[in-house]
């Protein structure tokens, strides 16, 4: 479980985040801040959807809109999005528009159109397989139109390595979300056990299971230098670790 010094470090990081997060970054409390513009991959089970809903709710901030692109083909397999459950994860259904494309081609088109439209705070897409070129297009559209694209990938899907971050979100016993930041352009990665607090609309830390050795100092996580490695649009940036 959690060691006290670790908790202290986290609290320090929280304080830093509260003091002010650079524009363009969404503070996530106990988790590293999320770039508002760009592609984020989230793989996992139902918790991945919940995590995406929570992120989208925070990105929308009660004002913005969210588009959720869920393929018709997966309707039987994965079930339909349920408003009351989305609300419980922090995504107000009144802010949400659902699109149901028939084919992956339509799904990618829908996501790109939505990103280019510049009317959404977040565009969530459930994609089975993502060709690298399509991923790069989405990343480009997300970056140029300052919108977050959240890609929901099935568990153990191969990453495309184009996005800003890659998360793994799975269930853990006791209503806990096991959140792993597997890849991040800024180099920080780690594993957190969190609970979504519906009342305060933030993640409550249950435990942190160790950051990777060699990761930069904690302040570097929340306040990255505004460099190419953070928001640059070049080819995949290797993890610094």
């Amino acid at each position, binding site marked *: 479980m959690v060691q006290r010094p670790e908790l202290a470090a986290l609290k320090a990081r929280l304080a830093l985040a509260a003091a002010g997060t650079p524009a363009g970054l969404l503070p996530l409390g106990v988790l590293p801040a999320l770039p508002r513009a760009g592609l984020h991959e989230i793989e996992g089970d*139902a918790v991945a959807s919940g995590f995406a809903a929570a992120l989208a709710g925070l990105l929308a901030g009660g004002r913005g809109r969210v588009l959720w692109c869920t393929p018709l083909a997966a309707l039987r397999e994965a079930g*339909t999005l349920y*408003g009351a*459950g989305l609300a*419980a994860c922090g995504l107000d259904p*009144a802010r949400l528009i659902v699109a149901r494309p028939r084919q992956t081609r339509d799904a990618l088109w829908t996501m790109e159109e*939505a990103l280019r439209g510049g*009317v959404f705070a977040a565009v969530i897409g459930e994609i089975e397989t993502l060709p690298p070129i399509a991923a790069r297009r989405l990343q480009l559209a997300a970056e140029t139109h300052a919108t977050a694209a959240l890609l929901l990938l099935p568990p153990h899907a191969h990453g495309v390595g184009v996005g800003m971050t890659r998360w793994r979100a*799975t269930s853990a016993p006791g209503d806990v979300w096991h959140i792993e930041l597997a890849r991040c352009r800024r180099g920080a990665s780690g594993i957190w056990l969190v609970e979504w607090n519906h009342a305060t609309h933030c993640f409550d830390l249950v435990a942190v299971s160790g950051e990777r050795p060699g990761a930069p100092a904690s302040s570097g996580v929340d306040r990255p230098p505004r460099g190419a490695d953070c928001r640059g649009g070049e080819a995949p940036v290797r993890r610094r670790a």
Partner: protein
Amino acid sequence: MVLIAEEAKRQFVVAPDALAAANGIAPGQTLVDARALAGDLVVASFEPAVVTRALDGIAQWCMRYTPATAPAGDDGVFLDLTGGALLFGGETALLADLVARLARQGFTAQAAVASTPGAAWALARFAPGTVARPAAERAVLAGLPVEALRLVPETVAILRRLGLDTVGALYDLPRAVLARRFGEELCRRLDRALGQAFEPISPLREVPLWRERRDFAETLLQPEDVAATLRRLIESLCARLAAEELGVRGLECLGFRTDGSTARAGIGTSRPSRDPAHLARLFAEKLSLLDPGDGMDGMVLSPTGLENLAPEQTALTRGGTQPGDLAALLDRLANRLGTTNVFALAPVGSHRPERAQRRVAPNTATRNLRWPDGMRRPLRLFANPEAIEAETAAPEEAPLHFTWRRVRHCVHRAEGPERIAAEWWRDAAPAARETRDYYRVENEDGERFWLYRQGAGETSRWYLHGLFA
């Protein structure tokens, strides 16, 4: 070649082709007689449905000349040319163009122009090519045989027997006598032909007043040319709409191919628009439907819905093509994915979880609707609850194990039951009237499921209804 039909176990010729007719074969002959005249006769059976379909196709194709076209009987098409013939260089030129184009498609056609459908019908059959001046119509019709009045064969036979061979022979007979002897139908037909009684044509589709039409001297072969023409049609239509402060809720484009087939594509908008860029962009997704094929020689664009649209409203719509306009984006999504596949969610006051939300149009105001609070509800719900096998320690308890999609899950934690009663006023089926006991269970890995037991005792069944995050 002839088309035949069977009646009272005998086969009759319905329609001979030109070659068969030249050999003396006529409609009404028995097939045996016809074969005697031409031994190598090719026979095909007459399919009324096929003929109707072909005629509908021709009527639709004729929309290149006028929006009001209608199949007439089983061998003709009415075109309402009111005010439209000038665009084609006059009625005589239009007739020639029509017959020539149909001939290129392989149809032998006769056509005539008159001021009433009845007279046009008569002239097309018995004096093809005639363009009757209204003043001369009575005189022209007088010389035609009585068949020209669209009468049933029995009436024609009686008239012939009485020596009344031409339409003109009926002019001078007292109306009362005609009606008594031959029925009201004859008088009505006569009046309609002479324009003394009005005969409506019911066109295939509602006549759009706001049509835009282009004919091409050179047929279009490239999809890009079709797109460019469509763009010009849209711009021209929008300019007219602006003058009347109207906007469209949808557009339909017909493309006429040289082979006689018609290409069709339609779009819809979530609110009235006359923004050419926006409308053209919606069509961009549908251009494959307007494939020119071997060549396209005409296009027509017409609105499928018109609404008032004040100038200040267009200021908003114009933003539609720029980033930042939600409605314009939703139109594009709906046009590609289908209107039912772009929606928002709205809560419904129902206890049954599957009824507690519904899909609404994405621009519906749902802000003030309250979602049920305080109850634990799954993130994803299965529209059809999936039957599972569950083991319980006691009949009325939470399950210890369950098997879903062939995977066995061990229940580590369970919350419940939450009893949800049936809505007997909504459910007719007895099974749907049973009360459900819902449990929120967690397996060994922490995955969370929403299960329910339906029915009680030995006959109870278990279902999985949703997944929690």
